[in-house]
């Protein structure tokens, strides 16, 4: 016991010597704060008048981190400048902060981690956080637990800090939470299920194999993922090895947990005390600000340890007013609870401010009402304005009697008003240049729209779709804002003004941002889906969109579950679907269908071209098959489409020649050469092959060749006798489901040809050697060749299809065979 303890102590001493490193990913890799973030990186957005990055530094300093690498990409210069100006860069701060500029091509957290690896920044266990963290959790404790665990389990590569809260906690992002499945004893993370609000995740699926080794499991749906990860040095190298990891959770965590090869463990540290949250979207911006104001983040509060170095006076009701006596409050103004007012700000008479943060050097005009809003520094709000639950950037001028409704984001230096009316969730940014020449035009247009567009958000979005398209494509190309991109984007915006019911006022220099969903939304997964983003906006109280989706989904859920119950609750199902889901799902379906069809027709053309090349250049069958498989994977079409395409390509390759014999030779040449390709495309389904052949022939000029081709396929063993019988029995083969027209007629005739072939099979099995025509349309052809063919036919037929003898006895054969079969039957009777 004693020596062990001693060695443990030694180790501890060693660890203390080690510098605790942290890596901050200071880029958000998304665009949720636009247009606020067009000119400043998100990590420099002020939260309670201190930049997010400062809050993050403060959180890390609290945890005893000594060396911090800040990975920045967009507006890196600004970040670097901010770091050099911050109090942490002063000598004696005890923390070394190194800004790392990463390449513009860094599009995701995964890329940033790969950059960390290639630069060899970290030397031991390190703390990985995002640049938008506000936390007072003792990360050093987590690091200790992590290192302790590493001593016994070298595979425990990462410890995620998760915070216990409630399901509906305000800092728990509704659109982007997750279910953590943990081992009850070790808190090893066994499964991670991201939960999105739209499309609503209705199920958590826990792999059963997890249960085998872990009899007691906790399923936690009440955790806030703080994105504080204590990582071992292996973690960046894992990113390096798996170049497709992008998101830390959805890719990396999921990848490690599901990998059979890695055998690495990831643990969770469930923090019961303390506060940690990320400012991931405008909604969490709101909730984190509120949490800071109501002192959940203590000791990180405005009146103490304010990361921006400001000094505030805290008074009852969580009012914070800059304590350098520079704030001028009019005698009749009302400052409500949970409000912070920055230095040198002037509040005029009768202004009411509650639940808001006002930056430095702001002016709030007389009679203004500011509720739950965040106003950055240097903004002037004219008299009689109303601002509710919005974020107003720095240097904004809001002229008199303007109303700004919930959820609006107003970019830096925008001028709106006078008498402007901003609709909910409007986003504004300043036009390039200062010329306001086309303002009046804009306004007129907007006034005109007001009547047509109605009040409904959804409708508004749909209407906007077409116009937004160009702009949104742009959006997708560049992952984050940078100066050039922003300009071109703004240019687009100005070229195509967005219809809106908002009135910007005659002095405005603002452009309205589009609010429609990006057109290629279907490709994106749950978390980034557009509807999901809507929920995460500031001021979204789930009144419109969220409730709808929840209602429809939950009723679907009931019905699907009750499907095992015969008396299922159909009435709920119907009413639920009728009212709720349709407005949400139909547009997306409409958008999806044409693209799917287009893909298929495109695929058909590509297959035809590929086979044409193969036929012309004489590729080997295997090579052609590989090419087809690649095509299929690329365009994601079902196998049956490939088969149809191949069959039709082969049929079309057969040249129509005069005379029976040459034609037959031509068929056997083509089918003999390429027939086996049909079964090499990745799956064998001869019945479908015959159907495809039938359908193709019925609508092709090569219809008369159907029988011969089928016979040839049979000869080359691409299809067997049983398959022809099976095909013959399907209702589709008889032309079921086709209405009139020459095609249906041809389909029926093909079926008749098939019937004849089957009759022949029956006869062959019953032992008759009658030479007879196999194809209906060839009945008039010379019999001798036919006979010789038939003989070989019958041989192979009896060899392959001997099992189906019982199917014989159809008796009434046609033509010559009738007598024979009758004889046969008679002899049997005797």
């Amino acid at each position, binding site marked *: 016991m004693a020596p062990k303890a001693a060695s443990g102590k030694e180790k501890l001493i060693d660890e203390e010597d080690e510098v605790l490193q942290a890596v901050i990913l200071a880029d958000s890799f998304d665009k949720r704060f636009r247009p606020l973030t067009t000119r400043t990186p998100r990590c420099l957005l002020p939260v309670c008048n201190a930049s997010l990055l400062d809050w993050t530094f403060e959180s890390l300093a609290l945890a005893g981190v000594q060396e911090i690498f800040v990975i920045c990409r967009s507006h890196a210069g600004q970040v670097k400048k901010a770091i050099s100006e911050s109090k942490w860069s002063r000598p004696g701060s005890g923390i070394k902060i190194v800004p790392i500029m990463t390449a513009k091509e860094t599009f995701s957290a995964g890329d940033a981690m790969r950059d960390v690896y290639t630069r060899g920044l970290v030397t031991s266990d390190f703390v990985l956080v995002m640049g938008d963290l506000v936390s007072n959790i003792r990360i050093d404790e987590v690091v200790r637990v992590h290192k302790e665990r590493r001593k016994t389990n070298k595979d425990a590569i990462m410890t995620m800090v998760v915070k216990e*809260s409630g399901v*509906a906690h*305000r800092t728990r992002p509704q659109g982007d939470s997750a279910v953590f499945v943990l081992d009850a004893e070790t808190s090893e993370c066994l499964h991670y299920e991201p939960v999105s609000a739209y499309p609503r995740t209705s199920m*958590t699926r826990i792999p059963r194999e997890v249960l085998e080794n872990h009899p007691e499991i906790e*399923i936690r749906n009440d955790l806030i993922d703080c994105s504080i990860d204590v990582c071992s040095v292996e973690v960046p190298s894992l990113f390096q090895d798996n170049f497709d990891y992008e998101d830390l959770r959805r890719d990396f965590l999921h990848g490690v947990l599901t990998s059979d090869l890695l055998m690495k463990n990831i643990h969770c540290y469930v923090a019961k005390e303390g506060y940690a949250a990320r400012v991931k979207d405008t909604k969490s911006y709101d909730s984190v600000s509120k949490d800071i104001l109501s002192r959940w983040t203590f000791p990180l509060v405005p009146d103490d340890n304010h990361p921006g170095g400001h000094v505030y006076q805290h008074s009852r009701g969580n009012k914070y007013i800059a304590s350098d006596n520079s704030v001028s409050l009019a005698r009749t103004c009302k400052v409500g609870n949970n409000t912070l007012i920055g230095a040198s700000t002037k509040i005029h008479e009768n202004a009411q401010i509650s639940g808001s943060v006002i930056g430095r050097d702001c002016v709030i005009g007389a009679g203004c009402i500011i509720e739950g809003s965040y106003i950055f520094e240097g903004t002037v709000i004219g008299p009689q304005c109303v601002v509710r639950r919005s974020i107003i950037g720095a240097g904004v001028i809001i002229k008199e009697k303007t109303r700004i409704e919930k959820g609006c984001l107003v970019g830096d230096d925008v001028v709106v008003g006078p008498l402007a009316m901003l609709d909910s969730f409007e986003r504004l940014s300043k036009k390039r240049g200062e010329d306001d020449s086309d303002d009046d035009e804009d306004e007129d247009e907007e006034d005109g729209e007001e009547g047509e567009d109605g009040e409904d958000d959804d409708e508004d979005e749909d209407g906007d779709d077409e116009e937004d398209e160009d702009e949104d494509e742009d959006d997708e190309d560049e992952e984050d804002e940078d100066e050039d991109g922003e300009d071109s984007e703004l240019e687009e915006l100005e070229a195509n003004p967005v219809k809106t019911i908002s009135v910007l006022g005659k002095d405005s220099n603002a452009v309205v941002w589009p609010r429609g969903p990006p057109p290629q939304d279907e490709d994106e997964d749950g978390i980034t889906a557009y509807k999901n983003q809507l929920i995460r906006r500031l001021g979204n109280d789930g009144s419109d969109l969220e409730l709808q989706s929840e209602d429809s989904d939950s009723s679907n859920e*009931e019905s699907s579950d009750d499907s095992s119950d*015969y008396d299922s609750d159909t009435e*709920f199902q119907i009413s639920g679907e009728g009212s709720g889901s349709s407005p949400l799902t139909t547009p997306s379906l409409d958008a999806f269908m044409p693209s799917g069809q287009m893909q298929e027709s495109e695929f058909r053309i590509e297959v035809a071209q590929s086979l044409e090349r193969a036929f012309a250049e004489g590729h080997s069958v295997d090579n052609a098959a590989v090419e087809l498989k690649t095509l299929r994977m690329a365009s994601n079409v079902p196998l049956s489409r490939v088969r149809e395409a191949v069959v039709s390509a082969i049929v079309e390759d057969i040249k129509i020649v005069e005379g029976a014999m040459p034609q037959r030779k031509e068929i056997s040449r083509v089918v003999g050469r390429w027939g086996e390709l049909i079964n090499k495309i990745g799956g064998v389904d001869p019945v479908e092959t015959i159907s495809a052949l039938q359908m193709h022939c019925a609508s092709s000029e090569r219809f008369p060749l159907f029988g011969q081709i089928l016979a040839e396929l049979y000869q080359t063993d691409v299809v067997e006798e049983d398959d022809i019988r099976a095909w013959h029995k399907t209702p589709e083969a008889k032309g079921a489901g086709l209405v009139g027209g020459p095609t249906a007629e041809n389909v029926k005739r093909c079926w008749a040809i098939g019937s004849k072939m089957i009759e022949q099979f029956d006869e062959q099995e019953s032992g008759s050697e009658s030479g007879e025509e196999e194809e209906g349309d060839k009945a008039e052809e010379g019999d001798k060749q036919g006979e010789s063919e038939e003989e070989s036919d019958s041989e192979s037929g009896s060899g392959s299809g001997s099992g189906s003898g019982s199917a014989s006895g159809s008796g009434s054969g046609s033509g010559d065979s009738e007598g024979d079969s009758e004889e046969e039957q008679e002899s049997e009777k005797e």
Partner: protein
Amino acid sequence: MLEMDIQRDLVPQEFLAVILAGFGNELSPLTSDHGDEPCLKALLPVANTPLIDYPLSWLEQSGIKDVLLICPAIHRPALSHHIHSHPNSLLHIDIQSYEETPDSAVGTCTLLRHFAGRISRDFVLLPCDFIPPPSLSLISILNKFRTDTVSDGLIATTCWFTASKTDKTVIPDEWGHIAPPVSIVWDKPSTTLLYVDTPDDLDRNSEEVELRMSMLSRYPRSSLSSNQQDSHVYVCKRSVLDVLQEKHHFDSFREEFLPWLCKVQYQRAKREKYEHILSSSTNTSQSQALRHSTLSSKSKAQQAPHVHKSKSTATSAPQSPIPSDPNIDPHPSLRVGLHMHRNGIAARVNNIHSFLEMNRHFLTSASYSLPTDPTQRALIDQKAQISSDTIVGESTQVDERTSIKKSVIGKHCTIGKMVKIVGSVLLDHCVVADGAKLDGCILGKNTVVGAKAELVRCITQPGYEVDPGENVKNEKLEISDWTAGAVGDSDSDSEDE
């Protein structure tokens, strides 16, 4: 005893116990017919006590007096004979039978629907094969039910125990498979059963356990235990039967109805539909009248969804201010509670493994001593070696130089000379001839083992005869033709009487 008396006086006739005695097909060949006479699962002795006596005495301890015993019609005479020959003075046992055969056994739900008319109170549903450990008292389960029904409208309480790890090497595969443990999801603070993984779920998705988010948002911190066994002891409100009446297609209570019942509380459509049935209390005429009132039930159903939402937020830990609703849910929770039993060995003797295991479990606490009664004593030869971890039934004869270790020997057995019995279970009326060796065997009743036969890990059907000198290993010995052994059987039967 005191507690029992108080209960009887204060809360008369609170519960009705319903015991279901089935065929025990999983216990074959021990429960296979012996001639024309069925061998009842309920009367299969474990440590020389018939199975049915375990739940009966458990009930007796809990103070429940009224018992409805449901059995197949052909079992009725034997069962009623047993019950009346061993008068359990405190219990009033009403035996009801149901026409069924081992091949077409009727599901537990069907039985309950059929006998619902006889169940007019809250009831305790028990199997005939559950052997509770001494550390688990039915009273604790009943009390849990009592408090939870009153406090928040719980509708049923279940009892689960940790599945014992069976050593696969001891038991040959020929004896049949071991019942796999069940995965359940439950909420620890409120001890609510949320989800039971059924064979149907396994069929639907054999790779993953699918859990609904609606459940996880109501119970954000639930536990998944994957090694649990259902004791099949359910304390239910009478109203549960009313719902069962409406769900005609449910067959098994454990595998179908209970998993469904767990979901009622958090699935809105189900709740709306069944809330008025489930939440009505049963015993008063007033509630009967209320149940028929469309007015009250409708208003409840309409309010229900809103209440849920507010409740889900209210359950979260208030670490930071949350939009919580101060109203306490006035509606019944309709949840299914659970009692998790973790210490002490419990088992349902519904397969051969647990049969052997429970027999062996009782042996660990057994201490054999020679019978004091002189006539009994005379049957045991002085030169016989019987180790202390053995149970020997009355009127069993053991001859000289026979050694018995770690075994249960039934009543009226005859064991010859030089016999070696190790780790075996012999049911009543077995005859083991001289020089035979038994190792790890289970002999059905009236089994005859010939001289010098050697059986290792074998199980025999009642009445089976092992030829002298035969050497069998790892076999399930069943009788194909009954005419051969008919004479011997009638002999032993007459002896029995």
